């Protein structure tokens, strides 16, 4: 592994691949943060698929495989598809996911048809066109990295320029509108930037996996913070991390494609975030829920003991009868209460300690409020 890391600085190909993937992770993470917040997570998926006919048409019209030209074609097609989604949503009752699905699959179907049309036309220059579309990170060269830098840098620069506006747009579009901001224009700008990010990513991870690189970094970052600026920073960091480690992993053995590895690394980061992020992590949720359940359980146990002590006698037998459990379990329960210092053994069985009384009293006071609020409703 260390050897692989060392390779990044010496190996020309690996350096380009790692750098390209990292750049993609950063740009995807930042723009994905906004997409996820605006509940447009799957737009990236749609755009990535919809780019296909654009790329093919660009090739058919110009006959060249210059990446920038193909990206331009793909971008235009993706942009058209997103306009299509908006138009369908504005003018029909069709739900959002169906609108996205229709545009995704019809554009992609058309793209597949065009691609095969090109392949069957025996155009010698078409070779490698499908690699471009389905991602071949291993073929990233220095000029590609330069393209990524320029395009990604442009996207990030614009995000920085309109940061305040985009923030407002993502959290409270109605308020943004009332402030007189051009909400629709800003939304289109943000979507267009996402198109740009997707186009940059196409070449590296391919059509299908691009969606993950927009969504997962933002979703992971969301678990760690409530602040947008931190979220964006973390998303960029996670994206870059996944990009670099995916590239390194794929270089460590043969036959390991980079794109899927980047996505899998990203999914691992996401899983860790989901489970272990402080405050929001699932593990802490479970711990809290468990603690809560245990408290409620002990309180009910004490109340039962309290009732028994006041009215008859508190012993494993009576407790077992009241709680419909076996005497052995009841005996264990009494031991638990005793360990808490709430009951102590006496000649009849058990008695509540002063602390136990105090606690039971408090609980009863608290519970007395309950019926009233329920009735008052």
């Amino acid at each position, binding site marked *: 592994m260390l050897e692989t890391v060392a390779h990044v600085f010496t190996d020309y190909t690996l350096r380009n691949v790692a750098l390209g993937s990292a750049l993609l992770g950063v740009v995807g993470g930042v723009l994905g943060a906004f997409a996820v917040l605006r509940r447009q*997570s799957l737009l990236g998926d749609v755009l990535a698929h919809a780019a296909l006919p654009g790329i093919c048409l660009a090739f058919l019209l110009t006959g060249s495989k210059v990446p920038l030209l193909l990206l331009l074609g793909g971008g235009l097609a993706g942009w058209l598809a997103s306009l299509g989604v908006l138009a369908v949503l504005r003018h029909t009752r069709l739900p959002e*996911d169906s609108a996205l699905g*229709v545009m995704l699959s019809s554009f992609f179907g058309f793209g597949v048809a065009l691609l095969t049309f090109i392949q069957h036309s025996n155009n010698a220059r078409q070779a490698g066109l499908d690699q471009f579309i389905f991602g071949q990170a291993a073929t990233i060269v220095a000029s590609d990295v330069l393209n990524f830098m320029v395009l990604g840098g442009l996207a990030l620069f614009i995000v920085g320029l309109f940061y305040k506006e985009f923030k407002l747009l993502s959290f409270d579009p109605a308020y943004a509108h009332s402030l007189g901001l051009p909400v629709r224009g800003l939304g289109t700008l943000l979507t267009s930037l996402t198109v740009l990010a997707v186009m940059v990513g196409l070449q590296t991870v391919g059509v299908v996996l691009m969606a993950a690189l927009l969504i997962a970094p933002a979703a992971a970052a969301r678990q760690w913070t409530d602040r947008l600026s931190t979220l964006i920073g973390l998303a960029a960091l996670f994206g870059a991390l996944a990009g670099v480690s995916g590239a390194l992993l794929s270089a460590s053995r043969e036959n*390991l494609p980079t794109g*899927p590895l980047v996505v*899998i690394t990203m999914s691992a980061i996401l899983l860790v975030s989901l489970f272990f992020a402080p405050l929001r992590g699932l593990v802490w949720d479970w711990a809290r829920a468990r603690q809560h359940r245990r408290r409620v359980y002990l309180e009910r146990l004490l109340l039962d003991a309290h009732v028994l002590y006041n009215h008859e006698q508190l012993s494993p037998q009576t407790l077992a009868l009241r709680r419909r459990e076996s005497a052995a379990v009841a005996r264990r329960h009494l031991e638990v209460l005793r360990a808490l210092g709430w009951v102590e053994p006496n000649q009849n069985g058990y008695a509540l300690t002063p602390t136990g009384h105090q606690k039971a009293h408090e609980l009863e006071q608290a519970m007395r409020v309950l019926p009233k609020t329920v009735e008052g409703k």
Partner: protein
Amino acid sequence: MNADLVITLTAILVSVASALLGTFLVLRRMALMSDAISHAALPGIVLAYWLSGGERATPVALAGAAAAGLVTVTLVEWLTRSGKVKNDAAIGIVFPALFSLGVLAVSLYFRQVHLDLDAVLYGEIAYAPFNTLTLGGREIPESWLIMGSLALLNLLFVLLFYKELKLATFDAGLAAALGFAPGVLHYALMTLVSFTAVGAFQSVGAILIVAFLIIPPATAYLLTERLPVMIGLAVGVGVVSSLAGYALAIWLDASIAGMMATVAGICFALAFFFSPLEGLLTTRIRRERDRLLVAARLLVAHLAHHDRPVSEQEVIEEFAWNPRFLKRVRHKALQMGWLEVTQGGLRPRHPPQ
């Protein structure tokens, strides 16, 4: 057997099987789950392939893909319920991860085997005539058997559980309260979607199956508000796309499934613009007609206040209409029989009583 016949009938069976389920996916706002399932089926197929020791038997692949489909659905549900991510993000997280695992497994272990990624992603329906098996002494295409059974299975499912599906789709709360177990229905539907996706893999491919599941039902959705009609229309659009797509693909020498999806997309665009229900142009034309009708009524009411014919110039000044609009309003009013054009100008026409 005639290759055209094999291919078109396979495509029709795929589109029928898909339209039946897709209708409910679209109505239940789960259209993109089909995208997720069709991608996530890949690791399931690879796993089944590996477990069965390199057999490429369809039943095993179906089982593997169905398992993968259920894993996808469960994971998405779990992620959504945990409240950590929204539903759309959950879909977008789960399927690329599973798909990546599948791609990785293929490139690591099955590189040399005929589990061609391109074939899985695109599918190639043109090969359908070559895969045949003998059944009762007659040779029939494998794809007919697979897709035919799936279409039949889906049809049975929809027929048997029509009432439950309808209720769970339009009022999940009531369905649950009546004890219809919408959860079970949900998973049953998703299992069938996984089956259908895998069954159609060889013919239309992982990604294009989404087109067959979503576009025809979405098109039908724009054309009707009645569920049985929607199912029928969805099947119809699917069949038309299959036939026309095939013809176009042959003509242009392009991917058959891709062309079918393209035609389905065109059907959707036509419905979007021209649906009598809420088509963009239809609505516009209707709105324009209503506007003219209102204006014509206004004009006639205005004319009725005068004892004399009113010149068009006066009307234009009165209502601040431009002359071209007046001409159209006049035409409409004449058409409706509300107006007379006399020497001195316009005048309301009294009904001949």
